[in-house]
């Protein structure tokens, strides 16, 4: 038995995505900028994918720019908007629980003279609204808040936050890192008040190396890559046509029977949480009293196991063909302690004892049951040999 429960890190590529990628690579390999028929054929994939993504967001296809993935989308959003609006002010607000692809570009902007505020979150990983309102001022040009947290699955009330921000300063640009949320939630930027939205292909069974940024009409942006002027100069470089075509297919697929899929995920999450609670000395991070769990993301569960180092548990599970992450996979290739876990105030000794289980539409009840029974078996053994 194998259980891949690391879908927050990446997901398995769909057959249909693979097929379209192969078709583009082998048959429709033209450069979409070429004037001949090969170029036109390739461009069709881009138009098609753009339409699908725009439809999923109830947006205009003109508002979609393709990038090399979530990290580039976030970089483009923050640096591009900061450069475009620097005359209006130099203040940017974000939260303490963002992904490094938000925090690090902001550190870069800080070096060039911007002032960055980091909002605290409560123990469930929800942004402190009062702090947000306190921070917004005349100088504020940009607020960046993630929809779903990648480490503990906490969800922000994005529409409400957008309303509060615009109520206090209507000029502020609101960026949402939607990389873990897109495909799990229906996100309608215009209705919700989002100006910029980052999405990624490989978190929704699409290919790696492709993502997109939604840029609301009339929002000014400076490019961060310069060259041949592709994508209306917003993102130079020959388009990644196989990736774009694959992303389009993945988006179409993920939003089919969407409600049903999400209901199934919450069902699995509930069973997993019930099961894991039977193990002694554990804490499930970011879970509220809501028994339906609907105020957290359907696919991410963060569990701290007292007295066990996450790396050891991870490799033990791996020996049983169960694949998980320690903290956040993006940040945890190097064993550094997680920013989110610190921000929600979990005990210091548990920081290095936390595992993230993350599901996808492929996850089965059997995988969950197998994982639970394996955990119940190995945890007592590992606790016998702890460092003291």
């Amino acid at each position: 038995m194998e259980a891949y429960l690391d879908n927050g890190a990446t997901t398995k590529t769909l057959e249909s995505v693979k097929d379209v990628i192969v078709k583009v690579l082998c048959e429709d390999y033209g450069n979409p900028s070429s004037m001949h028929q090969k170029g036109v054929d390739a461009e069709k994939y881009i138009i098609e994918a753009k339409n699908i993504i725009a439809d999923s967001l109830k947006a205009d296809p003109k508002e979609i720019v393709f990038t090399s993935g979530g990290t580039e989308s976030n970089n483009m959003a923050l640096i591009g908007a900061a450069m475009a609006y620097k005359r209006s002010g130099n203040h940017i607000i974000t939260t303490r629980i963002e992904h490094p692809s938000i925090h690090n570009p902001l550190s870069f902007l800080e070096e060039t003279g911007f002032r960055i505020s980091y909002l605290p979150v409560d123990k469930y990983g929800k942004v402190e609204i009062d702090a947000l309102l306190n921070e917004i001022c005349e100088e504020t040009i940009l607020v960046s808040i993630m929809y779903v947290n990648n480490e503990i699955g906490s969800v922000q009330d994005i529409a409400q936050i957008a309303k509060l921000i615009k109520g206090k300063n209507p000029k502020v640009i609101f960026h949402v890192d939607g990389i873990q949320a897109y495909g799990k939630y229906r996100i309608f930027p215009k209705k919700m008040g989002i100006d910029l939205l980052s999405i990624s292909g490989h978190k929704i069974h699409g290919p790696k190396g492709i993502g997109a940024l939604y840029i609301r009409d009339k929002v000014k942006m400076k490019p961060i890559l310069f060259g041949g002027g592709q994508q209306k100069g917003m993102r130079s470089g020959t388009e990644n046509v196989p990736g774009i075509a694959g992303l389009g297919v993945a988006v179409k697929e993920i939003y089919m029977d969407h409600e049903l899929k999400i209901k199934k995920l919450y069902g699995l999450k509930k069973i997993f949480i019930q099961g894991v609670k039977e193990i002694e000395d554990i804490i499930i991070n970011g879970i509220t009293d809501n028994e339906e769990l609907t105020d957290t993301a359907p696919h991410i569960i963060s569990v701290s196991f007292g007295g066990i180092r996450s790396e050891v548990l991870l490799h033990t599970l791996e020996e049983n063909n169960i694949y998980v992450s320690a903290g956040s996979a993006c940040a945890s290739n190097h064993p550094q302690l997680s920013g989110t876990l610190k921000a929600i105030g979990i005990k210091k000794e548990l920081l290095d004892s936390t595992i993230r289980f993350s599901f996808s539409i492929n996850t089965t009840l059997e995988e969950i049951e197998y994982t639970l029974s394996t955990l119940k078996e190995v945890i007592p053994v590992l606790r016998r040999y702890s460092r003291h």
Partner: protein
Amino acid sequence: MYKAFLIKYAEIGIKGKNRFIFENALKDQVKFALRWVEGTFHVSKEQGRIFVEAMTDYDFDETVEALQRVFGVTGICPVVVIEDNNWEALSKAVGDYVDAEYPSKNFTFKVAAKRGDKRYPKTSPEICMDMGEYLLDRFHELKVDVHNPEVMLHVEIRNKAYVFSKVIPGPGGMPIGTNGKAMLLLSGGIDSPVAGYMIAKRGVRIDATYFHAPPYTSERAKQKVVDLARLVSKYAGPINLHIVNFTDIQLYIYEKCPHEELTIIMRRYMMKIAEHIALENNCLGLITGESIGQVASQTLQSLAATNEVCTLPVYRPVIGFDKQDIVNLAEKINTYETSIQPYEDCCTIFVAKHPVTKPSLKVIKYSEKALEEKIEELVKVALNTVETIHVD
């Protein structure tokens, strides 16, 4: 400009009747080092030196870099080969060489000539004098100093003429393979690759043993050790890396012995196992990266306690080094960056807060009695499941 290299070596010259063994080994190592370099080379041994001649176009920097990694080489002289050795052509070519190689002519020099081809119309002293005169005429700033020249200009005449004056330093040491083989205990830290390098430099072929403790140490920690072995092999030649699964032994010691003594007892078993693999692979000694007092398990008492389990000599080339000295050497041989990747190794996973620093052998041996029931079986299993990776 340069078509050949003259390889200088020092210690080999005093090896008496065994000298040819060392020279042949050096020749082989030079060939081995050049195998991936762009170009085709002819390597020959003649008159007490190794001569490398490029038969095709080649990459100069890459070649020098490769030669600088060959132990036994003390100096690499880039040589200009002059095909036409009639005096007019020769002197002009030597003058051109001096002109190109030394933009400022304000230095003292001396010509050292050697005449391999005895039919050549000038004798060696005549070549020296006439060449000196020609150069003084052509470059007025030059001065001759026969006792202490800044530049020693070698001119050798055989069927072609060879000119050289520059010496690029080599690593020194002895050619690999001239001093047997030893087993390096390679941990993934900073010290052990340096220790391996130092012993290899004395002509010793290296095998390595690594103790892997899944799931406590990760696959990536193992990969890091393979990477380190590969970096050391750039100097030391091919390495057989033996990977021992140490988890069960470690857990058993953890269960049965006092926690403060865990590291020492564990290291004693590591030495035992390494020695066993060493003997199986014809190694004549063990090599560790231990340095006195660096950690609790490297005090004199601890070293004595771990040393006691084996009969093979244990070589500890960095024993008297400060950490910074070891780091400097690691940077020089390019292992430092890899060594500091943050993967846990099996020595630290169960380390006690206050491990013993002055273990008494008597106490340790008494503690080890608790292991009698199963330890031999576990060691046997570990030895039977060794995975060997060939790295080069």
